């Protein structure tokens, strides 16, 4: 890229911000425009369901970059400015405040919380959600969480820590834990139960009534749960409405090749992007912080120095009932086995595909064991993706 050129990044959360930073690290000297729909400076989302919700942090502590730090990096930040349309032929993004021309475009618009039938049930996705949820949690004697995944589990855990009686309601038979899927279900369910969470799995919510003094949930078993507070954590939908007329493939997020290109000079990263997995050939979205960061760095390298890098290894972590759970790699729905050779404590678990360990889970394992498990995944990956 020449210094006369201009990169527009749409989306100012972790993916977009990291892309903008990484363009500079790669040596790009041209203009960088970072467009966000929220008013806030870029902030970190994982603490929204962890430290912030538990009341351990104040909202300011989630901020990643100050205004001055963005200026110092030569990043022109435009908040409160949603993107509305993309024209690939004329290389222009239409935003609420006007038109942005680009030589390269990075799409990082993320995903938004799926709503439960438009009934005004609280969700958790952005800073305001977390602040309002924390305030309500401080007085809620009973909490009902709908959605038995990672986020639902973290909210349930925070509710217990703050002294609420907690129901965790899930449609599926088992808790599905991020990319690890159902193979970790039993451990997570046992952990919830041991910490006093009332599980209601295989339970469809037929009706929710939300009033000023609380909510009532009618389950398909006929049971009615009354709670001071109901929260829905039933997944996220990629933010692609603004791309509807662009001609890009947005069948499940922005569909990309294995280096994140959706069209010439147009890339997508983070929760909104479905990169092709070189191993399986399928494009899929990965909603994890580390994935967003590594895709951002990879795309910056491609744009500035035409240096392709292989798709990053997914990593995510969660804190539930005081335990730290980490997952590294790919799980493909395979069962988890104890990795006794590296983990005397029995708290490192591995998932095998095609005779190779492609993913490991640390169930509050000592750090040295997690590091050993990560090396196994890296080695098995290098065998199938030899670096040029």
């Amino acid at each position, binding site marked *: 890229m020449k210094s006369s050129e201009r990169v527009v990044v749409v989306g100012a959360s*972790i993916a977009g911000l*990291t892309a903008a*930073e*990484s363009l500079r*690290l790669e040596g790009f000297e041209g203009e960088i425009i970072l467009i966000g729909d929220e008013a806030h400076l870029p902030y*970190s989302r*994982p*603490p929204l369901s962890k*430290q912030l919700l538990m009341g*351990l*942090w104040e909202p300011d*502590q989630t901020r*990643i970059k100050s205004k001055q*730090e963005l200026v110092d990096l030569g990043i022109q930040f435009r908040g409160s400015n949603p993107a509305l349309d993309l024209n690939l032929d004329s290389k222009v993004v239409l935003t609420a405040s006007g038109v942005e021309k680009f030589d390269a475009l990075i799409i990082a618009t993320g995903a938004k919380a799926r709503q439960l039938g438009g009934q005004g049930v609280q969700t958790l996705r952005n800073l305001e959600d977390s602040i309002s949820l924390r305030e309500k949690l401080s007085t809620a004697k009973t909490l009902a969480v709908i959605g038995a995944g990672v986020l639902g589990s973290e909210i349930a855990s925070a509710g217990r820590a703050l002294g609420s009686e907690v129901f965790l309601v899930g449609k599926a038979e088992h808790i599905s834990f991020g990319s690890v899927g159902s193979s970790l279900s039993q451990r997570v369910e046992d952990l919830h139960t041991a910490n006093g969470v009332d599980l209601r799995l295989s339970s469809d919510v037929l009706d929710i009534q939300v009033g000023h003094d609380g909510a009532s949930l009618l389950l398909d078993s006929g049971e009615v749960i009354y709670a001071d507070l109901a929260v829905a954590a039933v997944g996220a939908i990629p933010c692609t409405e603004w791309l509807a007329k662009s001609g890009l493939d947005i069948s499940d997020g922005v569909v990309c090749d294995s280096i994140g290109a959706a069209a010439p000079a147009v890339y997508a990263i983070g929760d909104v992007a479905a990169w092709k997995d070189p191993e399986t050939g399928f494009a899929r979205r990965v909603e994890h*912080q*580390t994935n967003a*960061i*590594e895709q*951002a*760095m990879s795309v910056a390298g491609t744009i500035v120095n035409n240096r392709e890098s292989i798709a990053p290894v997914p*990593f995510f*972590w969660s804190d539930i009932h005081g335990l*730290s759970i*980490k997952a590294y790699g790919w799980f493909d729905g395979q069962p988890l086995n104890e990795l006794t050779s590296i983990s005397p404590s029995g708290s490192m678990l591995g998932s095998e595909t095609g005779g190779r360990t492609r993913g490991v889970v640390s169930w509050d394992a*000592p*750090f*040295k064991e*997690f*590091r050993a498990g*990560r090396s196994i995944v890296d080695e098995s990956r290098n065998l199938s993706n030899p670096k040029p």
Partner: protein
Amino acid sequence: MKITVKEDACVGSGQCALVAESLFDQDDSGIVVLLNANPDASQESAAQKAASLCPARAIIVN
């Protein structure tokens, strides 16, 4: 260049120690240990990369 770390944000992913091993290490629970808070300019890009890669954004370089 000055590096600061936020231990209360660190999640022990270990990315920093992988990309800048002369600047960062991890203690027995995986939490970041800053080895050099004022490295020379030659290490700036490694420090910046570690800061960007940190999933918890627990490293600040300025």
